[in-house]
């Protein structure tokens, strides 16, 4: 008998809120988390806006010994995991801990730690760095610390596929639970690239907006970065039922494809095959999909390509479904973005509220879909998709159903 996978907990910290309730409230209101960036040397950048988590005090959450070990991306992941696990009500002291694992997506890992320490040795001429630089910067630091704090003894690793990292991570976790490798998986993504080196590198590619994130809109001029984390508890359905857990949604399907074409330019074919694959894996008909949380970066190339891929997969139904990019509010969290976006998908299924694409100015003929411009909408549906398409031509799409 096929094992089904459900979501029984979710947590986040991002520019829209310090938890799920604040984040969903901001999405319903269509609030922007994007503003002026604040960090050392920001005046040497051309790109000075981002969805930064402001007034964040690590000392309010972590001891000095923990702070010495935790890069900012690990801190965000731990805070999100704590909220998700608390909501799930799971206790890992018994056999459950042995049957629970962690997969966290991140593209940059401890990039802030690297930035600080490269600066120390190259710019400031120091010859000594803190002994914990390596355990702070490694990509699996967040996953490992979640497993240590909660005593989770099953599979534990990090996934790095640029902007699709957290969708790949959540898809892998889904496969582990469905396939029997674990009964519970803590999965999501975390990113913290909002520092001088992180933004300077992106600036070079000339796809960053200096004005704002306006996905699918005429006059859009690029992406805006965000930071933070979102983490979910994925649980085998009977396991959740047996303990009377509150089931938020079912993770019903997942597919991943590679464009095998270009290192930065997206492809209609790769994106379309991933969406079609997720539908097939979830045994969903295309007309059952009411909402797609778009990759929707706000770049010229992504948004038009994504719309063509949706049209190819959904045919006539493309005109009836809703597709929005919440990156317009929380920014592009790179390796963490799919996880924060899954919150909007669960909100659509559970609450019937579709998060909007804010910053929308005018329709672009190349993006002729219902992108839920500027204002959230009420709509009931039973199934939704969440898209992530990464540099490197890596596509990962999740399919969710209401329970």
């Amino acid at each position, binding site marked *: 008998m096929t094992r089904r996978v459900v979501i029984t907990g979710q947590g986040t910290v991002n520019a829209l809120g310090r938890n799920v309730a604040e984040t969903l409230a901001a999405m319903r209101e269509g609030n922007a988390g994007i503003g002026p960036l604040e960090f050392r040397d920001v005046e040497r950048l*051309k790109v000075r806006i981002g969805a930064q988590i402001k007034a964040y005090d690590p000392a309010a959450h972590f001891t000095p010994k923990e702070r010495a070990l935790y890069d900012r991306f690990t801190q965000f992941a731990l805070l999100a995991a704590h909220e998700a696990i608390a909501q799930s009500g799971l206790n890992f002291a018994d056999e459950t801990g042995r049957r629970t694992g962690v997969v966290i997506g991140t593209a940059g890992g401890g990039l802030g730690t690297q930035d600080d320490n490269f600066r120390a040795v190259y710019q400031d001429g120091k010859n000594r760095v803190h002994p914990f630089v390596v355990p702070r910067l490694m990509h699996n630091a967040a996953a490992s610390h979640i497993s240590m704090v909660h005593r989770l003894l099953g599979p534990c690793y990090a996934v790095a596929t640029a902007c699709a990292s957290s969708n790949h991570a959540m898809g892998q976790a889904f496969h582990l639970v469905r396939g029997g490798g674990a009964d519970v998986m803590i999965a999501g993504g975390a990113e913290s690239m909002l520092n001088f080196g992180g933004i300077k590198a992106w600036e*070079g*590619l*000339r*796809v*960053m*907006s200096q004005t704002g994130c306006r996905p699918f809109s005429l*006059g*859009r*001029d*690029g*992406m805006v970065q965000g930071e933070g984390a979102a983490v979910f508890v994925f649980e085998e359905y009977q396991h959740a039922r047996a303990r009377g857990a509150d089931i938020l949604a079912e993770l019903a399907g997942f597919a991943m494809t590679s464009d095998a074409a*270009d*290192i*930065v*330019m997206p492809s209609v074919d790769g994106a379309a095959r991933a969406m079609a694959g997720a539908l097939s894996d979830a045994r969903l008909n295309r007309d059952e999909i009411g909402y797609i949380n778009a990759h929707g970066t*706000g*770049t*010229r*190339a992504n948004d038009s390509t994504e719309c063509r891929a949706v049209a190819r997969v959904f045919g006539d139904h493309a005109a009836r479904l809703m597709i929005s990019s919440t990156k317009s509010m929380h920014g592009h969290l790179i390796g963490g973005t799919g996880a924060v976006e899954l919150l909007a998908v669960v909100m659509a299924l559970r609450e019937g509220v579709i998060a909007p694409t804010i910053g929308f100015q005018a329709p672009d003929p190349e993006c002729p879909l219902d992108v839920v411009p500027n204002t959230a909408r009420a709509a009931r549906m039973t199934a939704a998709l969440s898209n992530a398409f990464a540099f490197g031509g890596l596509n990962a799409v999740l399919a969710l159903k209401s329970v």
Partner: protein
Amino acid sequence: MVQTVRQQVLEIIAEQAVVPVSEIESDATPASLGLDSLGLVEAVFAIEETFDVEVPFNASAAEMDGFDNSSIAAIVLGVEALVSARARPAG
């Protein structure tokens, strides 16, 4: 012999497009030379490094916004303007 701005820009574009400078026609565009967006980004970077200027080019904006890159001639004119603005004393 001192190279003109135009000659240097054409050489940079020719290198990225992997074509001889002599084959860049007066009405050429980045697309007609087979220059994709990543090639254009690399060419703009080389122009900035060569002339010590900031080219307001955004690969995600329309081709006429900020920095007109609709044709090679427009790119040359744009760079010439940036170089002469840099040469002028500030204030």
